[in-house]
């Protein structure tokens, strides 16, 4: 559930003040982890909260972790350099706190009439069309309880955060090399 605009910054920027960020960029070829959503819309900021934890997790030291408002065309450059991509987003179609993991079909057709931001399949298609890159892409989504104005997560989604981290770590451990 992307809203607003993409962005970038440095490790350590506050995840609760509407500032997007990223961990130091490793040499190309590692895992790319992107948490996205609107950090000022309660559970829609799930991707930011998860990414901020993942950026500090020593098990993901070689990964490039990014948190931003939405998927933008520029991110296709990072996707093309990655060996694995994990996208973390909130979902209003699932039970609050429920975690689902799906692997994107790399051949998925994608089209977009709106180019300020992209859907996951469009981001992947852009990297494929422009740089011939087709890394495995996983989408980790978490059901939301609240999308009201606010910079904190609902109790159900907050409780799910450790499991989200473990799910991403497991994906990277299995597919990241």
């Amino acid at each position, binding site marked *: 559930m992307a809203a607003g605009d993409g962005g970038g910054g440095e490790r350590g920027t506050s995840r609760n003040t509407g500032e997007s960020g990223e961990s130091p960029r490793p040499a190309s070829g590692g895992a790319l982890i992107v948490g996205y959503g609107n950090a000022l819309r309660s559970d829609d900021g799930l991707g930011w909260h998860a990414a901020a934890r993942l950026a500090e997790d020593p098990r993901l030291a070689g990964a490039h972790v990014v948190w931003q408002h939405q998927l933008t*065309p520029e991110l296709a450059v990072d996707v093309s350099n990655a060996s694995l991509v994990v996208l973390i987003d909130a979902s209003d179609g699932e039970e609050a706190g429920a975690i689902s993991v799906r692997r994107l079909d790399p051949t998925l057709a994608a089209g977009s009439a709106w180019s300020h931001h992209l859907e996951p399949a469009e981001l992947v298609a852009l990297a494929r069309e422009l740089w011939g890159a087709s890394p495995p892409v996983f989408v980790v989504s978490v059901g939301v309880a609240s999308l009201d104005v606010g910079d904190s997560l609902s109790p159900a989604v907050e409780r799910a955060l450790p499991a989200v981290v473990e799910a991403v770590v497991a994906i990277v451990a299995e597919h990241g090399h």
Partner: protein
Amino acid sequence: MSREIVIDPVTRIEGHSKITIQLDDRGEVVDAHFHVTQFRGFERITQGRPVHEMPAIMARICGICPVSHLVASAKAVDDILAVEPPPTGADLRRIINLGQIVQSNALSFFHLSAPDLLFGFDADPAKRNIIGLARENPQLARDGIALRKWGQEIIEWLGGKRIHPTWIIPGGMAKPLTAEVRDRILAGVPEAIAAVERAIAWYKTDMVRWEEEASTFGNFRSAFMALVDREGNVDHYDGWLRVIDADGKLLADRVDPHDFNDYIGEAVEPWSYLKSTYWKSMGYPDGIYRVGPLARVNVADRMGTPRADEELEKFRWRVGRVAGSSFHYHYARLIDTLHCIEKIEALLRGPDILSTHILSRAGVNRNEGIGVSEAPRGTLMHHYKVDDDGIVLWANLVIATGHNNMAMNRAVLQVARHHIKGDKITEPMLNRVEAVIRCYDPCLSCSTHALGKMALRIQLVGPDGTVLDDLAR
């Protein structure tokens, strides 16, 4: 029985709007309105805030061009403090403003408009988008992404972050430039120039097939306004207002931006949240003028950098000294981008660009301040009044899309007249109405303080108010 067509929402622009087209008894188009249907109200919500907060608050108007609002707002607060930033502070503001224009122009041309130009206005929308562009002309798509990324990196490195940067503050800049960052930006200049020059070469070849289209694509007589420097070059940060008429005759020159209220009026229509500005001496609604890249290349004597001036000469040879068709915004936007890149390089190579003297400090010394600069879409004006403690009492923003409001309405009317036959909304008409608005790259978030993407709805309405046709997407 007169009738009306409504397009609601309009797509691939920033913000929400709809279009109504009025028909007369014989089915001829008699009028068209571009309605902006969302409201945000930054001029009101900032009342009562300390004036030093204004740049940070105003940057939140838009996620596409927050730097433009930061720059104009900081200049307005400089005026209230009665200070000038040190020269290096002003130059760093210039660089970040130019980086902002590069990334926004790239978004407009490569991501939003190039699919129309590459595939044609009537191509299947499933193909006529950035993914289709990547398949058909990957170099063009890569160049667009690279230019936008480079512009965003300049904003991030000079301003602290890509969206809503914080280092542009009243009195100058919060952080000096380091040699490492300067060299990193400079390293990207050759590829940025190559990317935009490839796009210009492609556009010049491609535009031949659009010459007839351009003649009815928002092609009308109007004035143009932009900032120019002492020598008459384009100036995106400072300088004087210059206004020319459709024949290139000066209507005003060397106008101190602080005096803009003497020249520009703002009208409000009941059918839109977007104000219509007009040139006062010509009255409303006759005082129509345009701003933005097309105005900048029309108004200035020169761009002021060698490569862009060379392209400007070719532009004028092809489309005339004063280009009247809104279609040429695209061409002008590329030349504007080329100039911005050259100017960034020149400023970065300045001998004092690494100076740490970048901030002037002062308290509230005036009760009123005005800041004017060129944003990607045109001239941007911030005007504030404060009490003796620096608390904001009143704010007025005159935004590029507001300057262009009457022109966009005129452009929609011309396209509708050319394409509407009978009482049905046709797909070619719908596509062109959207595309002509997109030439102006309107940012409705800025102009009405609204958030969201532009969706399109057209209604065809008869003289008695009957909706004859209604199309939304």
